């Protein structure tokens, strides 16, 4: 018997590559500067939590990047939300830039004069290369133009599943059943309502979706009709929706929410998980198998834990859900991107914040200047907000990748969302002398994680 063995090289999954730093398979988050902070991209099986800014402007942009990257890489997409209209979000994804456009953009940026701010540089420094505070863009993922929407033709090839929990009246009544509280809704609505799993619809018109939210009893029929009447642009997607619908009803008969009493007090979580696991249990997402159609699933949940999810057992349910979600995402070739209004959750229960952060792999807070004093502050005039890295955990490895600096700021330019190293202007104007100086002292620095009233000495 010979010791020769034919080496079988596994084909990489579309849109992924192996990280040279950690030897893990990573995929782009859609935003090159975010990728760089994460060490090249999101590792397969990881959950990235974006702690929303107050007005939910910038978190949504990152979500769009994440989804657009999935569409372009022909990966499977799962988008779930109660607050937004998922179909509408999908329709407004940014347009990808061609290589020529990217090159042209980079060339333009390089050609910008150094003294654009009216600053003159001493001659001894003039030969030095410019410090590029924008994180260098390695060749990962794609570049997108936020000004334009993705072409419908491109979207039609998207393998997307969306969840917006259309049978909301049922939920209210079921909640009431559990909580034993009175409801203004007629109980017959629940009795006659379909027990089927939530509707998946890809052809979602905003008005139609609003109507769907109100008309809950004919969800499945509506969805099928919606899917069948989908236009050419979403024909493929509609097929996916139809198949997903079929399989969803199969799940519902196998394990309907009524058959799982009291695990989640709020049955929405159960339904969302059912749907998600149905998708993730697909053969193409099984790790290690050498299936030809091996693919990556991008799970995106926006505004999870928003007031629409509130009930008496909100904290319990949310933690259970995240624990099971983490287990599911880790076990297959998927990445998960969640946005949460953490400022609201912190008001609901302060201890919930670290517990949630413990259940995700990356926790990134977007602190927007909009509506705050810093919006007009001269020190921050270049930026839209600060980016705080609260957690980066080592998955399938020992050490975690740490970016060059944790003092980061973001700016929403016309065409793109950029994360940069936080640079302060060389000198603040004299008009904002003392207040500015006081604020400057309060800037995030290496001691950003220090307790506020900590007066202890250094640890080392």
């Amino acid at each position: 018997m010979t010791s020769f063995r034919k080496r079988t090289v596994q084909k990489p999954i579309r849109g992924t590559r192996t990280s040279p730093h950690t030897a893990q398979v990573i995929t782009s988050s859609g935003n090159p500067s975010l990728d760089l902070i994460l060490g090249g991209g999101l590792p397969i099986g990881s959950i990235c939590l974006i702690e929303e800014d107050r007005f939910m402007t910038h978190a949504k942009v990152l979500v769009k990047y994440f989804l657009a990257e999935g569409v372009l890489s022909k990966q499977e997409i799962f988008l779930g939300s109660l607050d937004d209209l998922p179909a509408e979000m999908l329709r407004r994804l940014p347009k990808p830039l061609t290589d020529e456009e990217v090159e042209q953009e980079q060339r333009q940026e390089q050609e910008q004069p150094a003294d654009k701010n009216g600053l003159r540089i001493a001659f001894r420094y003039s030969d030095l290369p410019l410090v590029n505070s924008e994180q260098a863009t390695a060749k990962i993922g794609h570049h997108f133009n936020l000004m334009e929407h993705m072409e419908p033709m491109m979207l039609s090839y998207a393998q997307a599943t969306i969840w917006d929990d259309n049978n909301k009246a049922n939920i209210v009544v079921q909640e009431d059943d559990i909580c034993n509280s009175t409801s203004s809704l007629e109980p017959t609505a629940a009795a006659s309502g379909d027990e089927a799993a939530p509707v998946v619809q890809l052809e979602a018109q905003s008005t139609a979706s609003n109507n769907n939210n109100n008309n809950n009893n004919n969800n499945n029929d509506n969805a099928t009709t919606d899917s069948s009447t989908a236009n050419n642009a979403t024909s493929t997607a509609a097929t996916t929706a139809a198949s997903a619908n079929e399989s969803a009803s199969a799940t519902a008969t196998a394990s309907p929410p009524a058959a799982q009493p009291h695990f989640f007090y709020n049955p929405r979580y159960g339904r969302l998980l059912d749907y998600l696991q149905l998708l993730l249990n697909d053969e193409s997402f099984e790790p290690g198998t050498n299936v030809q159609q091996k693919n990556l699933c991008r799970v995106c949940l926006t505004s999870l834990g928003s007031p629409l999810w509130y009930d008496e057992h909100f904290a319990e349910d949310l933690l259970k859900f995240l624990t099971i979600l983490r287990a599911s995402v880790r076990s297959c070739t998927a990445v998960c991107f969640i946005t949460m209004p953490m400022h609201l959750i912190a008001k609901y229960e302060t201890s919930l914040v670290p517990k949630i952060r413990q259940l995700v792999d990356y926790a990134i807070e977007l602190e927007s200047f909009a509506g705050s004093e810093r919006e007009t502050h001269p020190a921050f005039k270049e930026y839209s907000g600060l980016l705080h890295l609260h957690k980066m955990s080592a998955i399938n490895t020992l050490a975690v990748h740490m970016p060059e600096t944790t003092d980061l700021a973001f700016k929403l330019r016309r065409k793109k969302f950029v994360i940069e190293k936080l640079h302060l202007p060389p000198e603040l104007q004299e008009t904002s002398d003392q207040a500015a100086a006081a604020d400057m002292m309060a800037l995030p620095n290496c001691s950003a994680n220090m307790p506020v009233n900590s007066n202890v000495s250094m640890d080392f």
Partner: protein
Amino acid sequence: MAASVLLACGLNEQKLPGFVHISEESNVDGSFLISCILGQRLRISNAGTLLVCLQHHYQHYFNAGMRLGYNTNIFLDKTLNVIDVLSDMARHGLSSKWLRSPDGLTLTEQLVKDIRNQLANNFPNRSSYTILIDNLSILFNLGASKQQVQQFCLDLADLAKEHDNLTVITKLSNSDIHQLTDNNVAKLGHVRIQVLRLKSGVFREVDGRLLIERVLDEGSYACEQSRKEVLYKVNDRNVKIFNPGEIGVKV
């Protein structure tokens, strides 16, 4: 690779104390300790190990172990047994036995039952046995109450007392939030390792602090206890330990 951290924690010997508790503050990752201990136990011939995966999958420990220079797959189902709760939940979804409690047992009771079964099957053939539980706070997340977790740890401590050469190692995250449970569980054993963040912020050359408390002699009137504090840095393939004052800011 991990010898220095184990030496600092006093866990580098063949015979370990009966109950060891690792407390992990919020925003700190102490998973490297589990990987280090696992590697040390697997290297001892004929020593059995049971890994209860609540926070990470088995695959994570395998990959982390490869970085530390050992291959868990070689020992799997021989000297290493795994209860992978997460994988089971992922495979069976909401109908998983850990979420459904089919026998009327609570999650913690089910876990104790499985651990006892594993122990009954494997302990007689091994010179020593170690049960590693990572981590207890997931039990809270899955709906276990404080009393249930406390009872679970008490049962484990009883197991350690019942059997010679049996060590139970538990880890609890967010110990600053679950402070009461953390202290109560730590009281069950003689060694407590606290993984703490740096009070002064983030430092590139140090990840955090390890505070090791060891009860030397629990007398009738006084308890003799030793405390040691070291700084740690988790690198790609090893864990480095520094004494406070050893490392400074390089200007």
